[in-house]
């Protein structure tokens, strides 16, 4: 569904992504992990077309992302920080996204489950500028799931959410994953990733160090907890890449 072929990205002299290649299939649920500044966000932004790769090809559903922006109709994206126009109401933001998405003759059924679960309808008329960080996070999550996209990209989805909402969101992610959607999650909350993901993609210093099934890594490293596995990876990085 998504393929990266030798993708490089540099900002001036700083090379952030180094020769990244991989392929993701529907139904996979991928944990994108790595230390701060390892290029996770840049990877996501490149996939979404916010950053333009210096070289290499990215394809979504077989189509090069540079040829047509319509591929983004298949993607639901939840940003790390949702900053929205301050004076718009929640209802207007949702309305706008609907206008953007449905214009192109692809009338999809919208998935309003999260609006109800997060009780957003009660605060539909509040301006976005007055919302707390957590509530804005809920709005972002809702927007990502709203159009039933086949690919979900979630950047730190549960950071900043209260435990109850965090559970609601995790339930939703699992549910969508079981429906066969491709899900990419970055997070530093390893316990969440352990629950939600089937694959691990480990980035360090802009290189893809490892992309494997969770179960395989567990067997290889002999560790059961993700935190231990990552510690293992970081110390024995050379062994795995060679």
């Amino acid at each position, binding site marked *: 569904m998504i393929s990266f072929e030798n993708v490089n990205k540099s*900002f001036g002299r700083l090379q952030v992504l180094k020769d990244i290649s991989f392929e993701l299939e529907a139904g996979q649920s991928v944990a994108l992990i790595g230390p701060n500044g390892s290029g996770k966000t840049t990877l996501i*932004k490149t996939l*979404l*077309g*916010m*950053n*333009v790769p210096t070289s290499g090809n990215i394809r979504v559903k077989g189509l090069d992302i540079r040829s047509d*922006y*319509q*591929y*983004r*109709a298949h*993607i639901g*994206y939840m*940003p790390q*920080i*949702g*900053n*929205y*126009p*301050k*004076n*718009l109401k929640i209802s*207007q*933001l949702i309305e*706008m*996204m609907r*206008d*953007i*998405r449905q*214009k*192109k003759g692809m009338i999809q059924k919208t998935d309003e489950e999260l609006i109800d679960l997060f009780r957003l309808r009660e605060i539909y008329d509040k*301006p976005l500028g007055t919302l707390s960080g957590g509530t804005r996070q809920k709005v972002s999550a809702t*927007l990502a799931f709203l159009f039933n996209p086949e690919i979900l990209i979630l950047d730190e989805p549960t950071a900043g959410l209260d435990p109850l909402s965090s559970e609601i969101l995790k339930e939703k992610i699992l549910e969508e994953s079981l429906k066969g959607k491709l899900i990419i999650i970055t997070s530093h909350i390893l316990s969440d990733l352990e629950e939600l993901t089937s694959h691990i993609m480990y980035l360090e210093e802009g290189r893809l160090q490892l992309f494997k099934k969770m179960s395989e890594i567990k067997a290889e490293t002999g560790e059961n907890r993700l935190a231990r596995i990552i510690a293992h990876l970081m110390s024995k990085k050379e062994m795995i890449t060679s």
Partner: protein
Amino acid sequence: MNKVIKYVIYDIVRNRFVLSYTLLLLFTSLAFYGFGSEGNKGVLSLLNIILMVVPLVSIVFTTIQFYNSYEFLELLSAQPISRGTIFLSQFWGINLSLCLAFFIGVGIPTWIYDGTGAGATLVLCGLLLSLVFVSLALFACTLTRDRAKGIGIALGLWFYFCLLYDGLALTVLMMFSDYPLDKVSLALTALNPVDLARILILMKLDISALLGITGAIFQKFFTSEKGMIISILLLLFWIMLPLLKAYRTFLKKDL
């Protein structure tokens, strides 16, 4: 694109800054038209305020608005719409809001109290100047991701066009005062949208005699139909040039 513009305008119109701008313009114009016995004096007094305030507000507001909605632009660019649409909807959203503010604040009072050709020229030039400085601001914004730098460049542009340029032009004219400079001074005017607007309005006010021989040449040029069209085209050019440059940069920019 209209759909995004609609929401950009919803957002901006509810902004206190735009509301205060409208009220400021409204009070200023009402005050000037109220004091002056002759209509044209009102236009003349208003002219000087507008030539300073409109560019300043347009350029500062656009820059702040652009950087404040940066994350939102990112989110939009993850949706199935093109970068060009995102950029132009920002441009038109900001423009329509500022022009609406100007029209309510200056346009309507001028129409009621003045109603002459000079008044109409004043309103037209004010609207065009808003557009020019919005597009200059977007040009500054696309140059850098750093908010402080962006606002710095924008203010620098305002300073240059509104204050510095006249001094520089005057210096040039003084240095070469032994030569016939009528054509040169005409050309120098074209290089600054603010001067262009100022001369266009002054010529409509029939006070060109104050400007001496140059005034006569200006009078001949700017009051002729050809001159009017050329100067409005030049102002449009001043809108298009920075806008096009900003548009091109934005299409390939890393957000």
